[in-house]
């Protein structure tokens, strides 16, 4: 599975405006709504599901990365949004560090397998510091798409 298979190209935010956990999640969900991946009528329900998942334990997995995720019947296949924060967001990460890179995932209820594969794929790419740093240096969505696609092709 490649990241570009599920990342919505129109839901890539190079400069997140918000700085609080719930606000960043809303900002990312809104990008999926604008991209047409999520119906506007499902917006609130999806945000609630994502926040509920956060309450079970932060999805900030270290190295400045968070992968907020939820299962929801408002999608028929796995879809993801991407965002960069220049100043960093306190996301209650286990290592106590702020989060700069966000990858939000929404999966249908029956997708345990593809969800796990997506998490694995994201982790495989993002554990490379050079890759993370190049992404953080991106100024626009095209640059982000280019760097992720290049990395995606490597393995």
């Amino acid at each position: 599975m490649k990241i570009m298979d599920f990342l919505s190209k129109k839901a890539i935010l190079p400069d997140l405006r918000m700085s609080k956990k719930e606000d960043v999640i809303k900002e990312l969900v809104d990008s999926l709504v604008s991209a047409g991946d999520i119906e506007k009528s499902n917006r609130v329900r999806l945000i609630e599901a994502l926040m509920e998942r956060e309450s079970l334990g932060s999805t900030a997995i270290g190295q400045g990365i968070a992968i907020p995720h939820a299962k929801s019947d408002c999608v028929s296949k796995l879809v993801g949004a991407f965002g960069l924060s220049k100043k960093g967001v306190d996301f209650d990460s286990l290592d106590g560090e702020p989060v700069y890179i966000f990858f939000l995932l929404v999966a249908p209820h029956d997708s345990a397998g593809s969800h796990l594969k997506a998490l694995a794929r994201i982790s495989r790419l993002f554990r490379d510091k050079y890759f993370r740093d190049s992404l953080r240096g991106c100024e626009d969505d095209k640059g982000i798409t280019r760097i992720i696609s290049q990395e995606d092709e490597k393995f």
Partner: protein
Amino acid sequence: MTKVAKQIVVQKKEGLHARPAALFVQIANKFDAKITVKRDADEVNGKSIMGILMLGAEKGSVIIIEAEGKDAQQAIKELEKIVESE
């Protein structure tokens, strides 16, 4: 230095997804022992969530946990519980 390795079949219904991975790492970090987890050709640091997630270990997959250090035995004992619980 004690070195212990154990092969385990993942029993979690949804595999080692984000929450069990976080729990695994939390437990692993209680120990001084160096902890490594292997699946096929991949070998990751057992104290990194990203490492564990990268393995994409679904239910039924086989992983090997290695611990090296004086508390290695106890580390393996606690870690295998997480992987083997459903």
